[in-house]
């Protein structure tokens, strides 16, 4: 005699088999529609992936175009007095001659002029 859980398992098994048979015996038109549905879903997936590649590429192209467009505008902008002074100060500080050289520039000038007179 089979126990209760065994009978239950047997019952479920018979249901599963009946359903499997029904799934296996789908006709050609049903199978064809399923294949079409699957292919359509897969194509949509491929298109989505392409969008992920295309959008960043368009972003890069747009950024480069914007930089190229704005570059001449910044290039031709006249320098203000402040900017010129700042550039000169930066040059003095950063070159290898040292601050004493610039402090003595007047002396060198006087030496070169007065020295010539002395000769």
């Amino acid at each position, binding site marked *: 005699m089979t126990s209760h859980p065994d*009978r*239950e398992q*047997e*019952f*479920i098994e*018979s*249901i*599963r088999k*009946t*359903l*499997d*048979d*029904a*799934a*296996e*015996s*789908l*006709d050609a038109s*049903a199978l064809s*529609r*399923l294949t079409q*549905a*699957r292919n*359509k*879903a*897969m194509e*949509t*997936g*491929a298109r*989505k*992936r392409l969008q992920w590649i295309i959008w960043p590429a368009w972003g890069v192209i747009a950024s480069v175009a914007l930089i190229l467009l704005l570059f001449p505008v910044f290039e031709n902008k006249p320098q203000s007095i402040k900017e010129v002074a700042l550039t000169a100060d930066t040059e003095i500080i950063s070159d290898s001659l040292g601050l004493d050289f610039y402090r003595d520039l007047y002396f060198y000038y006087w030496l070169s002029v007065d020295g010539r007179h002395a000769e």
Partner: protein
Amino acid sequence: MYTMNERFLETSQALGEFLETVERRALLMARVATGFQDEAFDIVQDAMLGLVKKYRNKPVEELKPLFYRILQNRIRDWYRRQTFRRRWQFYGSLEPDDEGASFDPINNHPAPESYDPAGILLRDEAMIALDAALRKLPLRQQQTFLLRAWEGLSVAETAMAMKCSEGTVKAQYFRALHTLRVELEDHCP
């Protein structure tokens, strides 16, 4: 070197193979739920699209519960639309009685729709009986039973697909099994 393109092709192939393994069962589940083959095809196609759009990069072993969750959502959406349509038709056809008494929509709810005869896939007597018994079950019991007993999802996976607790899955499955045993006494052991 493993390129992005190779990875994409491999993922796509795995996804395609996965859909091929579940599509027939999904179609039958949707057909049992709706009773219409054309509606079932639409639901399955929507579920496939949803899976590919949202979860195409997930590992294949995680796809099954996700796919059935989407399928169950689509079936529920279909039911909601049907209920709304029926209610609309019902209120549209109402004629006030002499005493002006209000109607009870639940008592007057139309009987379940009959099968679309052209769409019936049933081949043998056992399947006809099983199909009829399954359609008598409430939707949640019916789908819980199919996911657990036929598709072989675990209790946790079924709960995830059905958007309910594991306790509810167990209760629904037990009730469905009990009802089916009674209904199919003459057809199954």
